[in-house]
């Protein structure tokens, strides 16, 4: 058992393969650590910071931080929950997130994360209200970057899975956004079958498939029945 280490998340002993991230090890153990920019099948980039935990007293992103032997990781503490709430609020306020009219409502990870973290009313931050043109040039896809949370999942999926480079970050700071490899989306080789366009890749309602809107009725949408992360935390309950 040389290649595995053990460490603790909120007092629960967890094992990890050498070099495995805190989040991967937690997932396997059925401990859900909230996250937005990270998703199964893509290389983690640690940009949304929602998955922050304290490891041996230092704040780190659990999606990129390798687990250390005997480390003490704090995840569900008041301090960390407050950070996560602040970060999710920042993302809500940075873009235009009008849940009632958004096609992604009910399956939106940002919305679901808001509920999970108990953000149920107007928050303290100002709204930045970006005004970016919507790109509906592509026959099958609409791109509304006013709802983008800059998670970069579409960028990584296009580059690393589809081998296409349809998307890339442009600009910097608060002006940073996702750009497309052409004059508009129709000018790129994006296709409805791309992993980057897949409905599960964009966590919000930024990439929308035309002709498929509001396909699940209220009550049957992804997060209507269970909070975000339940598939991971369920694993723990199932383990004897």
């Amino acid at each position, binding site marked *: 058992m040389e290649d595995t280490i053990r460490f603790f998340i909120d007092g629960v002993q967890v094992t990890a393969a050498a070099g495995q991230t805190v989040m991967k090890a937690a997932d396997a153990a059925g401990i859900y650590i909230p996250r937005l920019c990270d998703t199964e099948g893509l290389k*983690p*980039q*640690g*940009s*949304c*910071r*929602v998955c*922050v935990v304290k490891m041996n007293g230092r*704040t780190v*992103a659990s999606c*990129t*931080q*390798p687990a250390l032997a005997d480390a003490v990781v704090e995840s569900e503490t008041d301090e960390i929950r*407050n*950070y996560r709430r*602040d*970060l999710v609020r*920042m*993302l809500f*306020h*940075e873009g235009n997130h009008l849940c009632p009219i958004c096609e992604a409502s009910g399956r939106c990870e940002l919305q679901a994360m808001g509920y999970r973290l108990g953000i149920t009313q107007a928050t*303290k*931050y*100002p709204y*930045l209200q970006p005004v970016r043109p919507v790109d509906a040039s592509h026959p099958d896809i609409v791109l509304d970057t006013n709802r983008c949370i*800059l998670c970069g999942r579409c960028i990584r999926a296009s580059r690393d899975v589809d081998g296409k*480079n349809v*998307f*890339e*970050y*442009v*600009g*910097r*700071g*608060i*002006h*940073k956004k996702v*750009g*497309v*490899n*052409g004059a508009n989306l129709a000018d790129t080789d994006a296709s409805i079958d791309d992993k980057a366009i897949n409905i599960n890749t964009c966590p919000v309602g930024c990439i929308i498939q035309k002709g498929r809107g509001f396909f699940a009725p209220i009550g049957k949408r992804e997060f209507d029945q269970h909070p975000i992360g339940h598939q991971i935390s369920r694993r723990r309950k199932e383990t004897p």
Partner: protein
Amino acid sequence: MNQAIEQSKKQAVIEICARFGNDRTRLLDILLAVQSRFRCVEPALMASIAEQVGSYRVEVEGMVSFYAFFSTEPLGEVTIRLCDDIIDRHSGVEEIAGVFAESLGVRPGETSADGRFSLLCTPCIGMSDQAPAGLFNGRVITNLTVPFARAIADQLVSGVDPAALELPLGDGNNTHPLIHSMVRNNIRLTGEVLLAGISPEAGLNNALARSPKLVIDEIDRARLTGRGGAGYPTGQKWRIAAETPASQRYIFCNADEGEPGTFKDRVLLTERAGLMIEGMTLAAYAVSAGQGVIYLRNEYAYLREYLQSILDSRRKQGLLGSAIGGHRGFDFDIRIQLGAGAYICGEESALISSCEGLRGEPKTRPPFPVQSGYLGCPTVVDNVETFCCAARILDQGAAWFRSLGTEGSSGTRLLSVSGDCERPGIYELPFGISVKNLLELAGAQDAAAVQIGGASGEMINMSQFGRRICNEDLHTGGSIMVFSARRNILEIVEYFLDFFIDESCGYCTPCRVGNVFLRKRIDKIRQGLCQLEDLDYLRELGRTIAETSRCGLGHTSPNPVLTTLKNFPLVYAALLKKSKDGMQAAFDIQSALEESRHLAKRRSMIYDPTYDDSPRE
């Protein structure tokens, strides 16, 4: 006709790319060359560039839109970048900008219709000791006064190229034909380590006479810590790089001196370039690195040819190249990488990204650059001053170095003093000097606040002037900005936040978004629209940004707010509104209604007591 122009532009781009071997990792150099050739990187040319180097169009756009010195619209034949650092603002840069705007017929931030002039602002260009200053097609002009600015403007209007302007010459090597600049060193105090006499190559010769391991041991024993700001033990850094198995290792010199109010590396690059390169060379020997890079900020491009000549002459002397100092198997050479206007590139992993032809975004750590840096190889990134110290330690010995300074901070420190004082400039002092003593040396009798360590540092009040500058107390990358009681603390805080908002790479949420929220609330406080709870808001938000950001920029970006809240509470208290009725004092129903009034084209029946419902147009 147009097609012919397009074609010739494409041809030029192809030639530029070929000049850099169509190497994807040299994209920064390629884009700098395109920008300098066409005064912009036209979107239409991005696809051609991408094609040549095996990249893709939007990636090139990502680069161009990241660095401040690139533009997609042509800049003027003469591009003026005035430094609008806080020190320059206090020295009247706004008035200077007004003079240029009026004389050149161009509004600040814009390019004149005839394409002759661009008048732009840029953050600290490392000339705070001779503010206000600016870059004129890269040429530095300092100590701008209204008559001086007018005289320059007149010449520019009459068609004189900035390079041909007749200006007074500075001192020291600034008079060297390859620098030929009016910049002054303003060395006010020379210390034993760096600015007093040195014996060239003594450190390198001593290093080459012992084993690489013993060189690192000597640096360890001297307890040299990084001079860039983070203060990491240098010997430990070198040791990890040396011990990480690799076929190639790199030595990077961080000359991207961007922390507002710092200009000591400018002086070292001018007066101690040989010593710095000597330090890089012995570091290469210690960790067995084959290649080095000097990452020179674009604001210091005026020093490039001079630095290049130093590298050339060292090659001729056998101090760079193969078998250095007759040491068979020790091959090492250095190239200069010019930056393109991005403070974040002073962060070591962002600096590496930039050299790889990427957006200057910090890399995920671990792995650390000393394990996996430039092109995945172990890379030592150290500050200009750190390399100079290393060369001196190998010359004079660790014991000598440790005899200077304090127990926890060996050696001397170059302090860049600017602002409200009689003698701004460079002071080389042993670690441990008190702020009070430094202020006396600089002639800052009426100092009321001192910003230690630049925008990311700490602002201290008069009762704290007894504190000492060293790793154990006040940590600094070298910037000391002095403010008298005439200055508005919150204006300074607001300026620093604007700086961080502009310079954040935008990679992570807290730094990208949180600083904008901090800035908005400070603005509200300045307008007198806040109450006590708003200070808690600032503290909590500041803490979230500091704790959850991905790199040092984000970790330190709330410092202007957090340290002034702690050290200048009365400044905030004086601006707070008291709530009489327990309701939010900050909420102003009248201004909240303004937008609705405008849209409805009528006034509120409830909130406008003098409501008049007669029809309006």
